[in-house]
């Protein structure tokens, strides 16, 4: 089965940020996303949302350029003040043309 090589960008952050992050990645060219409610712990313990450690995980399949842009904006505007983690890996996507 032929798949299309794309980047899967994963962003984990505080639930209050969800809407902003989604707007941000859309603006940068992401054609879609998948959001999962998760719990987490990292270097910064406290979350404001629901007082709990509830985070969201946002995953988006994008081209390398868009991936780059997203990670760039995140590290410029979010890493300093918010509890955010972001990573990227290579995936092969069925009908991947749709997402670029």
């Amino acid at each position, binding site marked *: 089965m032929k798949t299309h090589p794309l980047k899967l960008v994963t962003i984990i952050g505080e639930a*209050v940020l969800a809407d*902003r992050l989604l707007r941000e990645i859309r603006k940068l060219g992401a054609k879609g996303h998948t959001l999962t409610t998760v719990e987490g712990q990292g270097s910064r313990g406290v979350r404001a*949302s629901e007082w709990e450690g*509830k985070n969201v995980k946002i995953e988006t399949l994008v081209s390398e350029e868009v991936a780059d842009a997203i990670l760039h904006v995140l590290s410029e505007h979010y890493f300093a003040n918010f509890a955010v983690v972001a990573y990227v890996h290579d995936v092969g996507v069925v009908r991947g043309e749709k997402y670029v």
Partner: protein
Amino acid sequence: MSALELIQLNLLTPVVLAFFLGMAATLLRSDLKMPDELYQGLSIYLLLAIGLKGGVELSAAAPREFLIPAGGAVLLGLAVPLWCYALLRKIGRLTVADSAALAAHYGSVSAVTFLATLAFLAALGVPHEGFMPALLAIMEVPAIVVALLLARSRVPERTPWRELAREILTGKSILLLAGGLLIGLITGREGFAKVEGFFVTPFQGVLALFLLEMGMVAARRFGDLRKVGWFLVGFGIVMPLLHGALGIYVGKWCGLSMGGSMILGVLAASASYIAAPAAVRLSLPQANPTYYLTASLAITFPFNLTFGIPLYYAFARFAYGV
């Protein structure tokens, strides 16, 4: 009744004991876990029910009776963050963002503390104005706005004002309280009667369940008490006492009954943990949530719930000379 008896009367209710049980669950590392969705459901229920009941009472009140206390409540909400901010900046030596964040929380209000007070007054048979939930709703927002204004002039910021205003005013607690008030106001006592079996009959029990969860949440923050330091612990106990007394006098000046004034005192004394944290986290991300959440949830809330309420009551009796 002596102060001790009042404290006992307050502590030994199912609602407050449920709070202790929740704390015990966390401290004993029990595997008891209340699903987040349940907590959210209970909180929607409580806020909507408060609003509805308040709206029904408001529909029966004369506008004049209500407007003066409403003005007093707004003033309290505007003023409290000012001195909180100054104190935290000057004496507490906290950053601009942290001081403003705390000021927002202490100027705003806690719905659960409000409810525990109603239960306490009901147990004592002390009457009060029915429209107090409207004051609760009114006092949620002003302090947050004032505090953000204080910080914004001193901190680089990205969210545009218009967006911020929308976010604060449509925050879920405001929306449910205000929406409930409006529905109650429109339908009045008759319409409300149809839904009383849901919004009134089980209310106290739902509150107990909610406090079970709040006890767990508060206790989870106890570990952070060391991080926030003694100044903030003192702030979280002393300021509520001062604000409580102030609120009671403001209530008296506004012509509220003793019960009503005491409730206004409790509103002034309480610190927000729904509306303020959400607004502050987004608009003042530089502020450290450890400070404001720990102070509000692990210091002031438990203090008010246990000792604060009877103390404010005693003070209200003193102020009214009864």
